[in-house]
């Protein structure tokens, strides 16, 4: 049973290759510093991410999940990001049902050149998870 480490929450970021993954690269180019506890999983479209992927991430001991895709109306696959948004909503309620705070999963949209926004999202989510971790009882 994994012990929660309050100082470095484990966050998985599912990043859409059309936007968020490139934004993460851009953040690196610009040498912007963001928390290193973010692990990135690249996907072809935010719409590739299933509710089950999010639930399994929590089963594996992840503390937070980010789903990052293109801005609304900018999805190359038209509604992939909207579907992802709906699935994140569903995942939130499924997590609440089992006593896991729904705020531990969140979707954000960004453009491929928004390196600073990626860094901000990474930092803010890390802070949010740290706060949630400090609120819950240990174990």
């Amino acid at each position, binding site marked *: 049973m994994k012990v929660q480490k309050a100082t470095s929450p484990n966050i998985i970021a599912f990043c859409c290759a059309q936007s968020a993954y490139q934004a993460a690269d851009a953040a690196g180019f610009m040498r912007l510093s963001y928390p290193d506890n973010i692990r990135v999983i690249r996907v072809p479209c935010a719409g590739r991410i*299933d509710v*089950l992927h999010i639930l399994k991430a929590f*089963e594996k001991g992840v503390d937070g999940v980010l789903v990052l895709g293109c801005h609304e109306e900018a999805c190359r696959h038209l509604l992939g990001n909207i579907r992802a948004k709906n699935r994140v909503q569903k995942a939130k309620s*499924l*997590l609440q*049902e089992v*006593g896991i705070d729904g705020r531990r999963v969140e979707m954000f949209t960004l453009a491929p050149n928004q390196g600073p926004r990626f860094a901000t999202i990474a930092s803010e989510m890390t802070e949010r998870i740290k706060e949630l971790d400090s609120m819950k009882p240990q174990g």
Partner: protein
Amino acid sequence: MIIAQRKPLEDIEAMLTGYKKLLVLGCGTCVTICWAGGEKEVAILASQLRLASKKDGNEPLTLEATVERQCEKELVEALKGSVQQVDAVLSTACGAGVQTVAELFPDTPVYPALNTMFVGMPDREGVWLENCRTCGDCFLDRTGGICPIVRCAKGLLNGPCGGTNNGKCEVDPEKDCAWTLIYRRLDQQGRLDLMRKYYPPRNFQAVIRPGKIEALPA
């Protein structure tokens, strides 16, 4: 097809208290298509059950399986090996599937994860509507293919009633008046003469419940 919906998770959890080994069993037919109990939903439900009990440290062993049709004895029988490994089966099939499993494995408690709601059809992505009441005495021939038992709030056979209101129902103003729809459909087909006929009350015992049909294997 049969439309069902998953019960609230707390109801399901209440059924399963104390069980350490579970088989979550899905069905690949109706409940797959209405997103209630197919392979995907089995995986999600099993994942939730594991997550829910992680905190207590009492994570159950959850086996997951889906059969093509859970109301088929032969298909369910094939799962004997898995059922023997568990204390209880959580079925995500309709009532027919749950009972088939229960009958084949009488020593193992079988629990329903779904509420079986109605016979219906998909309207658009994510929306399913009831359109058949399985009354056993179908008269869709006379109503242009629209069933007033399901869609008329009063279940009239000789509608509309006096409360029809610009195509909407007086009992539920959100609903379309079924007989207005029937009238328009019959009009479109040039069969309005049917509206002048009087139909006697239907046979409420067309199906003696529980229903049974026997045919000679031939």
